């Protein structure tokens, strides 16, 4: 029986390295929820790094999570390459206009410098501030876009999907370019203090492109990026699947240490993949954390922990970002389930 209470870093390190933690770790992708919970609006997080850092510290303290997150999913590399990013008042920014209008435009793009271009220096400041605030005992988790996603953002999703048929060589040239830029930013995040790099690729799932296209245009570039970031010192790579990946999970565990999954049954998924990766998830974010009650979230969280925790490679979490307007009591219900049932050895 584990007797000493682990720090969040020790706990995450244990599950990543196939050792038994003292209890099931708990992480929530808390960007917009955290900002709202702290009484602010999303756009303010891009003007005052301290405001965002404080929102994460409040989440860490109140919900007893095992890590803090940077301003997750900000398409900073894409914007630095020239794509137009818009900032809604109280929602995450989004690329509104791609930069590669003609395929020949790719040759005109210059590689980004994460330390000086666009919003990347700001986001790096946020990561430095988070690491300074939480110290070595708490992991800082920072988001870097994978090459295919950034390719879609700077070219436009629809256009890139057509390029796959019209000019596959161009797509591969684009992926090499985005690979270099996304990797450079990922390394800068690690240099700034990120412990775990998290990523997501909703435009490359089973609902979007074929397995053949995934193997040719998305997966190899992601793996090269993940390996480069691990070699640069990341303690883990977390991959948020986002959507249906049923026909490609066997591939997408390659180069990855954690899968933050949705739309899977943990009862089947954990026994199959826990030997390869830590599995994080998957209390339904919208249908339950946002729209449910503390009781309904508690019921689902108990189901998740019963299915996931016996693998000893499970992290309690929601299935996507915690929606901004979620009732904090619903999120607290997940924490309470971890408190009540999460200690190893398990005793449900």
């Amino acid at each position, binding site marked *: 029986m584990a007797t000493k209470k682990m720090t969040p870093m020790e706990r995450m390190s244990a599950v990543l390295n196939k050792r038994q933690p003292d209890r099931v770790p708990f992480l929530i992708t808390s960007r917009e929820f955290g900002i709202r919970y702290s009484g602010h609006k999303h756009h303010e997080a891009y003007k005052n790094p301290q405001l965002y850092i404080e929102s994460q510290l409040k989440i860490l303290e109140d919900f007893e999570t095992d890590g803090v997150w940077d301003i997750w999913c900000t398409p900073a590399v894409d914007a630095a390459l020239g794509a137009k990013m818009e900032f809604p008042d109280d929602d995450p920014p*989004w690329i509104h206009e791609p930069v590669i209008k003609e395929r020949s435009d790719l040759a005109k793009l210059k590689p980004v410098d994460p330390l000086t271009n666009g919003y990347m220096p700001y986001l790096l400041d946020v990561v430095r501030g988070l690491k300074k605030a939480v110290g070595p005992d708490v992991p800082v988790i920072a988001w870097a876009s994978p090459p295919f996603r950034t390719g879609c953002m700077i070219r436009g999703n629809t256009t890139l999907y057509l390029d796959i048929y019209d000019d596959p060589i161009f797509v591969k040239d684009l992926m090499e370019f985005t690979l270099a830029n996304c990797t450079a930013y990922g390394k800068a995040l690690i240099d700034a203090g990120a412990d775990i790099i998290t990523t997501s690729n909703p435009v490359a799932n089973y609902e979007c492109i074929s397995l053949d296209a995934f193997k040719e245009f998305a997966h190899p570039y992601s793996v090269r990026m993940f390996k480069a970031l691990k070699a640069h010192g990341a303690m883990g790579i977390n991959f948020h699947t986002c959507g249906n990946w049923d026909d490609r999970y066997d591939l997408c565990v390659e180069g990855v240490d954690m899968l933050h999954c949705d739309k899977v049954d943990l009862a089947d998924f954990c026994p199959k993949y826990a030997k390869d990766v830590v599995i994080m998830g998957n209390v339904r974010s*919208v249908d339950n954390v946002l729209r449910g009650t503390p009781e309904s979230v508690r019921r689902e969280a108990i189901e998740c922990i019963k299915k996931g925790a016996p693998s000893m490679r499970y992290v309690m979490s929601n299935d996507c970002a915690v929606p901004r307007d979620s009732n904090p009591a619903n999120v607290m219900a997940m924490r309470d389930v971890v408190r009540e049932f999460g200690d190893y050895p398990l005793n449900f």
Partner: protein
Amino acid sequence: MAALKHLADLVETGKNQEVPAAVDAALKTGMPPYDVLINGLQAGLAVVGERFKRQAAFIPEVLISARAMKAGVDVLKPLLVKANNKPTGVCVLGTVQGDLHDIGQNLVGIMLESAGFVVHNCGVNVRPEAFLAKVKEVNADLVGMSALLATTMMNHKTTIQYFADNGYRDKVRFMSGGAPVSPEFAQEIGADGYASNALAAIELAKKLTQSGWNGNFINGDEVGAHMAA
């Protein structure tokens, strides 16, 4: 007929540059433009649509077929207007206020056009009053609303309510979709139907514009599943 089969094959395989000549060839046999549209162009896209439902084709495959279909529709359009063939329906599409995501919505627009609807895509961050103004301008039958964010999906409800407040709710049918939207949510906010993907949206749009629709909520995914079965 061989000309129609050839045309359907070209659409199915996305050979957009060869489609206009194949349409001309079919017309030269004396076939009515509407038959060329339905039994040539739409028949080809329908094959890809069925594959998409079975997840044997994906967004790129649908896009190249839809592009090929559009190349043919561009040739036929003046002839169809001359022959007074009416569109299946008129749809105003948009991502609701506060949301800037449009990939799914664009795909729905492409597919609806391919299915014979006239589509007016208002783009992203569409305010309720902009939806209503466009509906009035083009005399639309349908409004398709999309959202990717759990926050902005609440503006599906706001939009429907705005139409109700302005006495226009009963003049159009609302389709609700987007990643965080569930059939239960769509029904709860008073939409007429829900679809999780572009193909289901087409089945839903067809159902909602049929004269026999009884006013009950329709889950477009179930319509598609039924048809596939």
